[in-house]
């Protein structure tokens, strides 16, 4: 493994995009930052600006209003950026998949590198997904 990808793997900064979710996945993502799970062990921190982000965490169903915003956010991120779809809504659309305003699951809009299913996924599942992702990069 080269030095570059090692550094990248060791310092992933997260940016959280919440689509039209039921707000439960957002809370589970925040759980990962709490003392019990503490993702800063892996060098991950939550950043405020997408320009600094290495991982885009997308959760919730993407509706017609969210779609242009998600695209915009993705284009504004400095590459390489890894996209993780969280929750049943992020992966497939979940219970919102047949709604009027639904505009396709995340992977129809931007390329997704990892899927973490669950409604909502447990923090353990999110961590497991991230560890698998670390192996993949």
């Amino acid at each position, binding site marked *: 493994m080269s030095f570059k990808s090692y*550094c990248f793997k060791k310092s992933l900064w997260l940016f959280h995009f919440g689509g039209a979710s039921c707000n439960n996945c957002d809370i589970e993502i925040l759980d990962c930052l709490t003392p019990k799970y503490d993702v800063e*062990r892996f060098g991950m921190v939550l950043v405020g*600006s997408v320009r*600094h982000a290495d991982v885009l965490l997308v959760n919730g169903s993407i509706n017609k209003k969210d779609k242009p915003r998600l695209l915009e956010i993705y284009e504004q991120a400095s590459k390489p950026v890894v996209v993780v779809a969280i929750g049943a809504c992020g992966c497939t659309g979940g219970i919102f998949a047949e709604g009027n305003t639904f505009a396709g699951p995340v992977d129809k809009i931007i390329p997704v590198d990892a899927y973490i299913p669950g409604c909502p996924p447990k923090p353990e599942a999110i961590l497991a997904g991230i560890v698998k992702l670390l192996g993949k990069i």
Partner: protein
Amino acid sequence: MGTYLFYFLIYPGFLFAAVIGAFLSWFDRKITAGVQFRKGPPLLQPFYDFFKLLLVKETILPARGAKGLFLAAPIFAVFGATMAGVFILLPLMNITTGFQGDLIVIFYLLTIPSLSYVMGALASGNPLAAVGGSREMKLIMSYELTFLLVMAGVIIKSGQSINLYQIIQVQQAGTPFIGSLSGVLLFIVAIFCLQAKLAMVPFDMPEAETEICGGIFIEYSGTPYAMIKLSKYMSLFILPAFIVAILMKGFTLEGINILWAVLKLVAVVLLLTLIRNTNPRVKIKQAIRFFFIWMNLLAVIAIVLAIFGL
């Protein structure tokens, strides 16, 4: 010429300050994690962050903004931090004796990083960065006078010397300045100035992640952001080192005293970290009032006490 380049680039300038600063930044994050009952990042985390930003990430330039200034500002910041570091550390590490009036030069050089952040933020053309930039400017205006008063107090205590080396010598011959009442007051004021200079939590409104998404640094990515991180690491080393020099007797680098020097530095950083972890962010208006009224008052009292030799 060769020695000066060595001083500037390797020891005690750029490389040395950056490496020590990175370790101190890890220490800061680890203590923060400890306060919050977390485990915290690994030891080399600041280096991973820096090299990731430097080597891996793409640099994005703002479409509507002054691109040249946007890119130049981080370089100014690193340059200012390095120059200030050289002038502080040469007398502090007992390498050269500095020159007459270097305290004033250091004072101005220490302002350069913050000023260049403001320049970069305003050059980026982002409204949130402009908000952050204006806050940072107000913050600079409020703490700069206080910091000057601290230096005035130190100058009076050292018997009208404006040479950093002489100030350290005076303390090493007698007692450190912090051992007196006025010294303690000056130390308290200086710690709060440092907190504002480093933009740590009670005074981090220029960055305010939850409010204006990173503020002054919102548009930075890739290499320029790595430069900004570097200047932050260096500031985290040179500013506490400066306080150690002007108030806490400086360093003596022989035998067991090295441990003592490290402990002094770490203690100052620890104090900054604990303040940052136990306080909420204040509004810019409150910060200005805090510095203009309370801290200036405290500094003036300290100066008066110093004149009477307390």
